[in-house]
């Protein structure tokens, strides 16, 4: 025990954080205690609102000005709360590195990449002005950026999201800190990019001998990348232990629900889809492929300024079934869905809906088609008009297409509210008063309002917490079994796709590289890209069984 204390790098005791608001003090963190050993890797896991990011921000003092912090934070034996101004700043960036969450907004758009990396070094006088840029190039190279000399002269907008995240990692590690705090460093990235970046982060922290405090919402990542896991719920530490212990034998009900909610490739016990169909006693014959597809897209091509975003994509969606489009960002899956929604005009190819060629529909006839194809977007914070009440949002498609009168559309909105599991009291509220999961339910209710035959779900559960995600997936499966609506399910998350789809088409660079029934494609992937995608899923094994022992062996080695 004393041995452990000696090597303890970061120790947090009874951390309490509240936000002073007009309604009084809102507690975000209620007495968290934890420690990070020198060279240790600790992952903090929890849903949104669990206080995990607030805890990280408190350590590096990046909290909002209305936050009140209590408790002690000791770094390398020193009480951080005693440090003021310059004394604390000399620590930040030098001994504690911080990797922020969102690479798209965390870099200064008017400074070059090189300048931003060099800034850390010059601030801490680790390099003078002449050598700083050279050192910055070296730091970029270590962070796995290709052609670092070129990148150092570029501006953030010229880099992809994954590259920008690497730049943030380079900045955090440029001064070779003793502790790296990474706040959801890969949440905004594709699985394959995520894996490469986390590998890089692991290798780099190992090289400089830094400890890591990794904040994540993904239990799979935590299990793979950490040697200790802390589970937070509503600002309190509910469970702590090694990945094997936490995942293999969870003690707290919250941890258990988190593990249960994580979408899995393991389908023993059925998927959301099959379970819902069983409950609604949909006979297998009903779900068997019908002779004529509801929607058939043939040879779709979309070019943007000479660049082919969608390159000869052909898919068919059967009635009452779900087709998933999977692929990384930029693979053309969202563009394909927008072509099918007729929000974009295809450069070539044709779309046949229910036996009718709808490729060139316009005006009133296009609006009548919208009655039959609806959409749910990824971000429920952006997809609802903030000025309308929830009831009006849901009834809006009915009113737009003049289905029924004002009374009947309001009535339908109330029924839909109930169907998607929202309280009747939500009817008069504004979108801002609802949580992300509740808003996505509203978006689903809006899509259902016209009783469409096809709903396009464009990353509809990607922005949600795993527990909320599981609820929404179940809701979608239930609604399909009940109403017989077909889904086009766009996702980068293959585990989710496994849970909700009948068929799957894998897209890469605008082309379908593999397609077929989901069990076949996932069980026996033919294309190397599909295999790569499947392998990149974090904690692929840990959801179905205990984490592979070779992970811990590799780490200690």
């Amino acid at each position: 025990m004393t041995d452990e204390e000696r090597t303890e790098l970061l120790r947090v005791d009874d951390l309490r954080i509240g936000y002073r608001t007009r309604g009084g003090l809102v507690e975000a963190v209620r007495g968290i205690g934890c420690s990070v050993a020198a060279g240790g890797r600790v992952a903090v896991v929890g849903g949104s609102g669990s206080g995990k990011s607030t805890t990280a921000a408190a350590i590096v003092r990046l909290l909002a000005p209305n936050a009140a912090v209590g408790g002690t934070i000791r770094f390398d034996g020193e009480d951080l709360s005693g440090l003021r101004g310059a004394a604390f700043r000399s620590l930040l960036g030098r001994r504690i590195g911080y990797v922020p969450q969102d690479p798209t907004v965390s870099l200064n758009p008017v400074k070059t990449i090189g300048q931003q990396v060099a800034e850390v070094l010059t601030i801490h006088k680790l390099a003078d002005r002449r050598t700083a840029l050279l050192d910055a190039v070296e730091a970029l190279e270590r962070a796995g950026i290709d052609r670092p000399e070129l990148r150092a002269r570029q501006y953030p907008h010229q880099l992809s999201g994954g590259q920008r995240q690497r730049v943030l990692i380079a900045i955090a590690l440029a001064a070779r800190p003793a502790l790296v705090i990474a706040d959801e460093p890969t949440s905004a990235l594709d699985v394959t990019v995520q894996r490469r970046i986390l590998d890089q982060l692991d290798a780099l922290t190992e090289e400089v001998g830094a400890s890591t405090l990794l904040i994540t919402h993904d239990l799979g990542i935590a299990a793979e990348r950490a040697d200790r896991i802390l589970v937070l719920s509503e600002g309190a530490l509910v469970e702590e232990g090694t990945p094997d212990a936490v995942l293999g034998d969870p003690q707290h009900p919250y941890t258990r629900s988190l593990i249960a909610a994580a979408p899995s490739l393991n389908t023993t016990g059925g998927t959301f889809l099959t379970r819902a169909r069983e409950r609604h006693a949909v006979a297998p014959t009903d779900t068997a492929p019908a002779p004529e597809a509801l929607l058939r897209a043939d040879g779709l091509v979309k070019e943007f300024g000479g660049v082919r975003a969608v390159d000869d994509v052909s898919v068919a969606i059967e009635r009452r079934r779900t087709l998933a489009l999977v692929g990384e960002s930029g693979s053309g899956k969202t563009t394909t869905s927008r072509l099918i929604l007729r929000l974009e005009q295809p450069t070539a190819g044709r779309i046949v809906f229910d036996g009718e060629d709808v490729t060139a529909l316009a005006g009133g006839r296009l609006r009548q088609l919208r009655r039959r194809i609806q959409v749910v977007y990824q971000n429920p914070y952006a997809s609802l008009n903030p000025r309308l009440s929830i009831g009006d949002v849901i009834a809006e498609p009915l009113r737009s297409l003049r289905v029924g009168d004002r009374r009947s559309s309001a009535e339908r909105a109330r029924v839909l509210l109930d169907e998607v599991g929202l309280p009747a009291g939500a009817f008069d509220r504004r979108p801002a008063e609802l949580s992300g999961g509740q808003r996505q339910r509203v978006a689903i209710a809006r899509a259902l309002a016209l009783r469409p035959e096809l709903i396009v779900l464009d990353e509809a559960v990607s922005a949600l917490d795993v527990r909320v995600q599981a609820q929404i997936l179940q809701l979608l499966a239930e609604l399909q079994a009940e109403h017989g609506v077909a889904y086009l399910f766009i996702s980068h998350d293959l585990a989710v796709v496994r849970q909700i789809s009948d068929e799957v088409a894998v897209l890469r660079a605008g082309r379908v590289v593999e397609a077929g029934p989901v069990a076949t494609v996932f069980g026996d992937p033919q294309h190397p890209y599909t295999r790569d995608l499947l392998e990149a899923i974090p904690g692929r094994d840990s959801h179905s069984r205990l984490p592979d022992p070779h992970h811990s062996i590799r780490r200690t080695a």
Partner: protein
Amino acid sequence: MTETLALDRASASGTAAATDADSAARSRRAARGASTVRDLVVSAVWILVLLVAAVAPTLFTPVDPLETTGPVRQAPSFAHLFGTDAIGRDLFSRVVHGAGLSLGAAAIAVVVGLLAGTVIGLVAGYRGGWVDAVLMRFTDVLLAIPGLLLSLAFVVALGFGTVNVAIAVGVTSVASNARVLRSEVLRVRSSVYVEAAVAGGAGRLRVLLRHVLPNSISPLLALVALDFSSAILAISALSFLGYGAQPPTPEWGALVANGRDFLATAWWMTTIPGLVIALTVLAGNRISRGLSNLGTAGGAR
């Protein structure tokens, strides 16, 4: 005098945008500081008093503004609070009765500027392409001409009189209103909920009026109070020059003009109506700032 009265709309909207950046920081302080709230209340009360004077001037004074009721050019006293003018009319009564005309004209100017600016900004921002290019070049032309000069040109074309002056002043605010709204429409147009409305089957007009307009109009509404005070100033300026209300109708700008020959001997004839104009403009500006603070606070939520 005309230099101070000549209010360039472009520069006015420029400073509005500049103070907008501070306003976020300022609103935080405003939440604590009671003094700003007090300013706002005083301004609102002043505008309220003027509105009452505009609707029912006889509540304030029973004296007829057109009748000679006392000796000429008498200094302010209990009998004549603001003194009397060159032919012995009660200046207080004339200022009170002038409120209706001045505020009414300013209201017409604001409505003209708001309506035309909204239509141009909405159409330009939403349609884009050549429609946008044509409409924006048109507003560029309006912005290129100094506000007062533009108003003068319109008054000459439309003919003299308060309503025509009001319309002419309204025209000068069209360009900046259109630009403010256009930039907001551009932001809102690409938002997901607008696309969701299109995918939900909404027609173009419905998308525009129900989804785009309500989400883009608030910065413009915050500018209205500012527009209002600059309209009062511009209308007074045109009346001062003799294009507005014709004698003997009392109008604030005209009152200032009437007194200018007697500046040395009867200071009150120009100073008091001038002070009333200045206070009204100040109150309008203060309320505008309060509204835009409210807007940013609401947006942050």
